């Protein structure tokens, strides 16, 4: 359906911007040999970082299940409502686990 197609393309655009920022942040953070505690000290209370990764998680939670649905439809005989429900659950799982991690890094 067009809604899924549009959602996947829109989130792909978000991820195309967010993934390089995410990778660059990782490289920058570990460059000087920071410990986990030192990194968490910097992320604590950083609302910009929390919003960025919150958006990242939402985009992933939308993008990945739609792509996985396409893969499953092409490579298996699984179709119909059970597939859609299973991937909606997968999407929710990504969303909850991802936002929980963002909150943990923000609030610790």
């Amino acid at each position: 359906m067009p809604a899924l197609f549009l959602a996947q393309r829109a989130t792909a655009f978000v991820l195309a911007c967010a993934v390089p920022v995410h990778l660059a942040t990782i490289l920058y953070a570990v460059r000087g040999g920071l410990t986990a505690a030192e990194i968490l000290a910097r992320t604590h209370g950083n609302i910009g970082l929390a919003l960025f990764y919150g958006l990242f998680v939402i985009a992933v939670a939308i993008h990945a299940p739609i792509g996985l649905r396409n893969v499953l439809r092409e490579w298996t005989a699984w179709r119909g409502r059970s597939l859609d429900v299973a991937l909606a659950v997968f999407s929710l799982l990504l969303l909850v686990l991802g936002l929980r991690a963002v909150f943990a890094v923000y609030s610790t």
Partner: protein
Amino acid sequence: MSGVLGVDIWRGTEQGAFQAFAIPRRTHQTVLDVVTEIQREHDATLSYRFACRVGMCGSCAMVVNGRPRWTCRTRVTEVVEDGGRLRLEPLRNFAVVKDLAVEMTQFFDKWKEAHGYFEPGAAPERDFAVVPPESTERQLADAGIECIGCGVCYSACDVVAWDEDYLGPAALNRAWTLVNDVRDRGQPTRLDAVSGSDGCQACHTHMSCTTFCPKAIAPTYAIAGLKRAMVKRSLRGAR
């Protein structure tokens, strides 16, 4: 040109085996000439399909040495090196009727599913429509209008191989020519028909259809056009 050409031809339906033949090589011999000679001189039970022999009807397509081709316009010299053999199979992604003849009902049914037919509307125009040849819509329609329905693109398409419900490049190409037909009044239902999970959005842009189309049509770009039209319609709100 002289010598002998070794030919391996699929015999059977989904189950079967290759049968070997040897026929004389001839100058300018086409692959269809080879099949016809075998059927007439060696084995009258060989089944295949052809009609016009000049690249117009689209009925003689087969898989030739691993690639889908129109056999009436494919010379043996194009596909067989010196000393090489010719290997002929029925088109892929179609049910096999017998030997080299395939069942094309599903293929053409999908043209109907994609609304690949002109819809004049409830009250057709009284006068002739003027469609300038230089207009964008006319040029986009012209780019895909010469499809002969041979099934080569459908045979080459990976997405059809994965998802038998996928409408396929030919049906979507036909829909795109009609999306660009300014006289047509059936665009909303057509765009709905090609926008499902088995429609244009399922295309992976592998471009096999465009690579193998014997008429040099580019269904990949037609499908991309349908995706754009679908997105525009969605953003404006389906009416």
